Protein backbone atom coordinates (compact mmCIF):
# COMPACT_ATOMS: atom_id res chain seq x y z
CA UNK A 1 0.00 0.00 0.00
CA UNK A 2 2.91 2.29 0.79
CA UNK A 3 4.21 2.15 -2.79
CA UNK A 4 0.76 2.97 -4.17
CA UNK A 5 0.40 6.07 -1.99
CA UNK A 6 3.97 7.11 -2.74
CA UNK A 7 3.40 6.77 -6.48
CA UNK A 8 0.22 8.87 -6.42
CA UNK A 9 1.53 11.59 -4.10
CA UNK A 10 4.82 11.97 -5.98
CA UNK A 11 2.91 12.50 -9.22
CA UNK A 12 0.90 15.33 -7.64
CA UNK A 13 3.59 17.45 -6.00
CA UNK A 14 6.36 19.77 -7.12
CA UNK A 15 8.90 18.28 -4.72
CA UNK A 16 8.74 14.48 -5.02
CA UNK A 17 12.05 14.19 -3.18
CA UNK A 18 10.38 15.51 -0.04
CA UNK A 19 7.56 12.95 -0.02
CA UNK A 20 7.76 10.58 2.93
CA UNK A 21 5.20 7.86 3.60
CA UNK A 22 5.36 6.05 6.94
CA UNK A 23 3.34 3.02 7.86
CA UNK A 24 2.17 2.97 11.50
CA UNK A 25 0.21 0.08 12.94
CA UNK A 26 -3.02 1.37 14.50
CA UNK A 27 -5.51 -0.56 16.63
CA UNK A 28 -7.79 -1.73 13.85
CA UNK A 29 -6.03 -0.55 10.72
CA UNK A 30 -2.60 0.36 9.44
CA UNK A 31 -2.13 4.12 9.10
CA UNK A 32 -0.13 5.56 6.24
CA UNK A 33 1.21 8.96 7.24
CA UNK A 34 2.02 11.17 4.29
CA UNK A 35 4.44 14.04 4.66
CA UNK A 36 5.12 16.50 1.84
CA UNK A 37 6.84 19.87 1.45
CA UNK A 38 4.75 22.69 3.06
CA UNK A 39 4.03 24.29 -0.32
CA UNK A 40 2.73 20.95 -1.67
CA UNK A 41 0.18 20.26 1.08
CA UNK A 42 -2.61 21.98 -0.82
CA UNK A 43 -1.96 19.89 -3.92
CA UNK A 44 -2.34 16.65 -1.98
CA UNK A 45 -5.48 17.74 -0.12
CA UNK A 46 -7.24 19.56 -2.94
CA UNK A 47 -10.34 21.73 -2.92
CA UNK A 48 -12.66 20.58 -0.11
CA UNK A 49 -10.33 17.62 0.43
CA UNK A 50 -11.26 16.05 -2.89
CA UNK A 51 -7.77 14.83 -3.73
CA UNK A 52 -7.08 13.52 -0.22
CA UNK A 53 -10.39 11.64 -0.25
CA UNK A 54 -9.65 10.18 -3.67
CA UNK A 55 -6.27 8.91 -2.40
CA UNK A 56 -8.06 7.36 0.61
CA UNK A 57 -10.71 5.66 -1.53
CA UNK A 58 -8.19 4.12 -3.89
CA UNK A 59 -5.94 2.93 -1.07
CA UNK A 60 -8.96 1.45 0.69
CA UNK A 61 -10.00 -0.44 -2.45
CA UNK A 62 -6.49 -1.79 -3.01
CA UNK A 63 -6.19 -2.81 0.67
CA UNK A 64 -9.59 -4.53 0.69
CA UNK A 65 -8.42 -6.81 -2.12
CA UNK A 66 -5.72 -8.05 0.26
CA UNK A 67 -8.17 -8.23 3.20
CA UNK A 68 -6.41 -5.36 4.88
CA UNK A 69 -7.61 -2.10 6.36
CA UNK A 70 -5.54 0.96 5.73
CA UNK A 71 -6.19 4.64 6.43
CA UNK A 72 -4.28 7.54 4.96
CA UNK A 73 -3.41 10.65 6.92
CA UNK A 74 -1.83 13.74 5.44
CA UNK A 75 0.39 15.50 7.95
CA UNK A 76 0.32 19.27 8.08
CA UNK A 77 2.47 21.08 10.66
CA UNK A 78 2.96 17.73 12.39
CA UNK A 79 -0.76 17.43 13.01
CA UNK A 80 -2.82 14.87 11.15
CA UNK A 81 -5.40 16.39 8.83
CA UNK A 82 -8.41 14.64 7.47
CA UNK A 83 -8.66 17.23 4.74
CA UNK A 84 -12.41 17.29 5.09
Amino acid sequence: MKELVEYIVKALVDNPDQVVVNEVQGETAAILEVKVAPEDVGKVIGREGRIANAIRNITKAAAAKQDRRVTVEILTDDKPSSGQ
Partner: protein
Amino acid sequence: MKKARMKGKSVDEAVESALAVLGAKKEEATIKVICEGKSGMLGVIGGQEAEVEVMVAGELKDDAKQILQEILDHMKFLSMVETNESEDGVKLNIKGEDMGRIIGKEGATLMSLEILLRAMLGRMKNESVRISVDAGEYKDKRKTALERLACDAADEVSKTGIEKALPPMNPADRRIIHMVLKERKDVSTISRGEGRDRRLVINPQ
Protein backbone atom coordinates in the same frame (compact mmCIF):
# COMPACT_ATOMS: atom_id res chain seq x y z
CA MET B 1 4.58 10.70 -22.30
CA LYS B 2 8.31 10.20 -22.24
CA LYS B 3 10.39 10.30 -19.09
CA ALA B 4 14.09 10.49 -18.42
CA ARG B 5 15.89 10.50 -15.09
CA MET B 6 19.39 11.92 -15.11
CA LYS B 7 22.16 12.96 -12.75
CA GLY B 8 24.61 15.80 -13.12
CA LYS B 9 26.92 18.15 -11.23
CA SER B 10 24.09 20.68 -10.99
CA VAL B 11 20.33 20.67 -11.55
CA ASP B 12 20.78 22.62 -14.79
CA GLU B 13 23.31 20.15 -16.07
CA ALA B 14 21.09 17.17 -15.22
CA VAL B 15 18.10 18.82 -16.91
CA GLU B 16 20.13 19.49 -20.01
CA SER B 17 21.27 15.91 -20.37
CA ALA B 18 17.71 14.62 -19.79
CA LEU B 19 16.38 16.97 -22.47
CA ALA B 20 19.08 15.75 -24.83
CA VAL B 21 18.04 12.12 -24.21
CA LEU B 22 14.39 12.96 -24.90
CA GLY B 23 15.18 15.24 -27.82
CA ALA B 24 12.91 17.89 -26.27
CA LYS B 25 13.00 21.60 -25.50
CA LYS B 26 12.87 22.95 -21.95
CA GLU B 27 9.58 24.82 -22.62
CA GLU B 28 7.65 21.65 -23.42
CA ALA B 29 8.96 19.63 -20.48
CA THR B 30 7.87 19.17 -16.85
CA ILE B 31 10.89 19.08 -14.57
CA LYS B 32 10.99 17.49 -11.15
CA VAL B 33 14.05 17.83 -8.98
CA ILE B 34 14.72 14.52 -7.23
CA CYS B 35 17.84 15.79 -5.52
CA GLU B 36 19.28 19.32 -5.51
CA GLY B 37 22.84 18.06 -5.15
CA LYS B 38 25.55 19.50 -2.95
CA SER B 39 29.02 20.53 -3.79
CA GLY B 40 31.43 18.96 -1.36
CA MET B 41 34.64 20.23 0.02
CA LEU B 42 36.82 21.76 -2.70
CA GLY B 43 34.01 20.76 -5.03
CA VAL B 44 35.11 17.13 -4.99
CA ILE B 45 34.91 15.36 -1.65
CA GLY B 46 31.55 14.51 -0.09
CA GLY B 47 29.55 16.19 -2.82
CA GLN B 48 26.25 14.80 -3.97
CA GLU B 49 25.13 14.79 -7.57
CA ALA B 50 21.93 16.55 -8.58
CA GLU B 51 19.19 14.33 -9.99
CA VAL B 52 16.13 15.30 -12.00
CA GLU B 53 13.23 13.65 -13.74
CA VAL B 54 12.13 15.28 -16.96
CA MET B 55 8.79 14.47 -18.55
CA VAL B 56 7.50 15.40 -21.96
CA ALA B 57 3.75 15.15 -22.45
CA GLY B 58 2.47 13.18 -25.41
CA GLU B 59 -1.07 12.80 -26.73
CA LEU B 60 -3.62 13.13 -23.90
CA LYS B 61 -5.12 9.75 -24.82
CA ASP B 62 -1.78 7.93 -24.49
CA ASP B 63 -0.66 9.72 -21.33
CA ALA B 64 -4.01 9.13 -19.61
CA LYS B 65 -3.90 5.44 -20.49
CA GLN B 66 -0.32 5.05 -19.26
CA ILE B 67 -0.92 6.78 -15.91
CA LEU B 68 -4.19 4.93 -15.21
CA GLN B 69 -2.49 1.63 -16.01
CA GLU B 70 0.35 2.50 -13.62
CA ILE B 71 -2.11 3.29 -10.82
CA LEU B 72 -3.96 -0.01 -11.38
CA ASP B 73 -0.67 -1.91 -11.41
CA HIS B 74 0.29 -0.32 -8.09
CA MET B 75 -3.15 -1.33 -6.74
CA LYS B 76 -2.24 -4.90 -7.83
CA PHE B 77 -5.37 -5.17 -9.94
CA LEU B 78 -4.87 -7.28 -13.02
CA SER B 79 -6.52 -5.11 -15.61
CA MET B 80 -6.06 -3.28 -18.86
CA VAL B 81 -7.21 0.08 -20.13
CA GLU B 82 -8.94 0.88 -23.42
CA THR B 83 -9.21 4.43 -24.71
CA ASN B 84 -11.73 6.11 -26.90
CA GLU B 85 -11.66 9.72 -28.06
CA SER B 86 -14.89 11.64 -28.57
CA GLU B 87 -16.03 15.25 -28.59
CA ASP B 88 -16.52 14.96 -24.81
CA GLY B 89 -12.82 14.24 -24.35
CA VAL B 90 -10.98 11.00 -23.71
CA LYS B 91 -12.92 8.05 -22.34
CA LEU B 92 -10.96 5.35 -20.54
CA ASN B 93 -12.51 1.95 -19.92
CA ILE B 94 -10.97 -0.51 -17.47
CA LYS B 95 -11.29 -4.23 -18.15
CA GLY B 96 -10.14 -7.10 -16.00
CA GLU B 97 -10.67 -8.78 -12.63
CA ASP B 98 -12.16 -7.21 -9.49
CA MET B 99 -14.46 -4.88 -11.41
CA GLY B 100 -16.68 -4.48 -8.35
CA ARG B 101 -13.78 -3.17 -6.28
CA ILE B 102 -12.59 -0.88 -9.06
CA ILE B 103 -16.07 0.61 -9.40
CA GLY B 104 -16.70 0.90 -5.65
CA LYS B 105 -19.92 1.77 -3.87
CA GLU B 106 -22.07 3.78 -6.26
CA GLY B 107 -19.02 4.29 -8.45
CA ALA B 108 -17.00 6.01 -5.69
CA THR B 109 -13.67 4.34 -6.54
CA LEU B 110 -14.09 5.07 -10.26
CA MET B 111 -14.79 8.69 -9.40
CA SER B 112 -11.65 8.79 -7.23
CA LEU B 113 -9.53 7.38 -10.05
CA GLU B 114 -10.95 10.05 -12.33
CA ILE B 115 -10.21 12.87 -9.86
CA LEU B 116 -6.59 11.76 -9.36
CA LEU B 117 -5.96 11.13 -13.04
CA ARG B 118 -7.35 14.56 -13.91
CA ALA B 119 -5.12 16.21 -11.26
CA MET B 120 -2.01 14.39 -12.48
CA LEU B 121 -2.63 15.10 -16.15
CA GLY B 122 -3.65 18.69 -15.46
CA ARG B 123 -0.37 19.24 -13.67
CA MET B 124 1.61 17.68 -16.48
CA LYS B 125 -0.09 19.64 -19.24
CA ASN B 126 -0.70 22.88 -17.33
CA GLU B 127 -4.34 22.95 -18.38
CA SER B 128 -7.50 21.17 -17.33
CA VAL B 129 -8.14 17.98 -19.25
CA ARG B 130 -11.37 16.34 -20.28
CA ILE B 131 -11.28 12.68 -19.36
CA SER B 132 -13.67 10.15 -17.90
CA VAL B 133 -12.91 6.78 -16.35
CA ASP B 134 -15.30 3.84 -16.68
CA ALA B 135 -15.05 0.14 -15.91
CA GLY B 136 -16.96 -2.49 -17.84
CA GLU B 137 -19.49 0.07 -19.11
CA TYR B 138 -20.64 0.73 -15.52
CA LYS B 139 -21.26 4.40 -16.24
CA ASP B 140 -23.27 3.71 -19.37
CA LYS B 141 -25.47 1.25 -17.50
CA ARG B 142 -25.83 3.63 -14.57
CA LYS B 143 -26.77 6.43 -16.96
CA THR B 144 -29.55 4.33 -18.49
CA ALA B 145 -30.86 3.38 -15.04
CA LEU B 146 -30.81 7.02 -13.86
CA GLU B 147 -32.59 8.21 -16.98
CA ARG B 148 -35.33 5.64 -16.42
CA LEU B 149 -35.66 6.67 -12.75
CA ALA B 150 -35.86 10.33 -13.80
CA CYS B 151 -38.55 9.74 -16.42
CA ASP B 152 -40.69 7.64 -14.06
CA ALA B 153 -40.45 10.30 -11.34
CA ALA B 154 -41.21 13.09 -13.83
CA ASP B 155 -44.30 11.22 -15.08
CA GLU B 156 -45.51 10.91 -11.50
CA VAL B 157 -44.94 14.63 -10.76
CA SER B 158 -46.68 15.60 -13.98
CA LYS B 159 -49.70 13.45 -13.10
CA THR B 160 -50.05 14.38 -9.41
CA GLY B 161 -48.83 17.97 -9.59
CA ILE B 162 -46.80 17.40 -6.39
CA GLU B 163 -43.02 17.95 -6.25
CA LYS B 164 -40.79 14.95 -5.70
CA ALA B 165 -37.31 14.77 -4.20
CA LEU B 166 -34.95 12.05 -5.44
CA PRO B 167 -32.42 10.33 -3.14
CA PRO B 168 -29.11 12.18 -2.50
CA MET B 169 -26.72 11.79 -5.44
CA ASN B 170 -23.26 12.90 -6.49
CA PRO B 171 -22.89 15.84 -8.94
CA ALA B 172 -22.30 13.58 -11.96
CA ASP B 173 -25.50 11.60 -11.35
CA ARG B 174 -27.56 14.75 -10.75
CA ARG B 175 -26.22 16.23 -13.96
CA ILE B 176 -27.43 13.22 -15.95
CA ILE B 177 -30.96 13.70 -14.58
CA HIS B 178 -30.98 17.48 -15.11
CA MET B 179 -29.96 16.90 -18.72
CA VAL B 180 -32.56 14.28 -19.51
CA LEU B 181 -35.42 16.27 -17.93
CA LYS B 182 -34.35 19.58 -19.46
CA GLU B 183 -36.24 18.75 -22.62
CA ARG B 184 -39.55 18.13 -20.85
CA LYS B 185 -42.02 21.00 -20.74
CA ASP B 186 -44.22 19.54 -17.96
CA VAL B 187 -41.58 19.49 -15.19
CA SER B 188 -38.55 21.48 -14.00
CA THR B 189 -35.61 20.42 -11.83
CA ILE B 190 -33.51 22.04 -9.10
CA SER B 191 -30.95 20.74 -6.62
CA ARG B 192 -31.45 21.22 -2.91
CA GLY B 193 -29.36 20.51 0.19
CA GLU B 194 -25.65 20.64 0.89
CA GLY B 195 -22.75 18.25 0.41
CA ARG B 196 -23.64 14.57 0.55
CA ASP B 197 -27.28 15.42 1.24
CA ARG B 198 -27.69 17.36 -1.97
CA ARG B 199 -30.56 15.96 -3.98
CA LEU B 200 -32.54 16.75 -7.04
CA VAL B 201 -36.12 17.92 -6.77
CA ILE B 202 -38.61 17.63 -9.64
CA ASN B 203 -41.33 20.29 -9.73
CA PRO B 204 -44.52 20.38 -11.78
CA GLN B 205 -44.50 23.16 -14.35
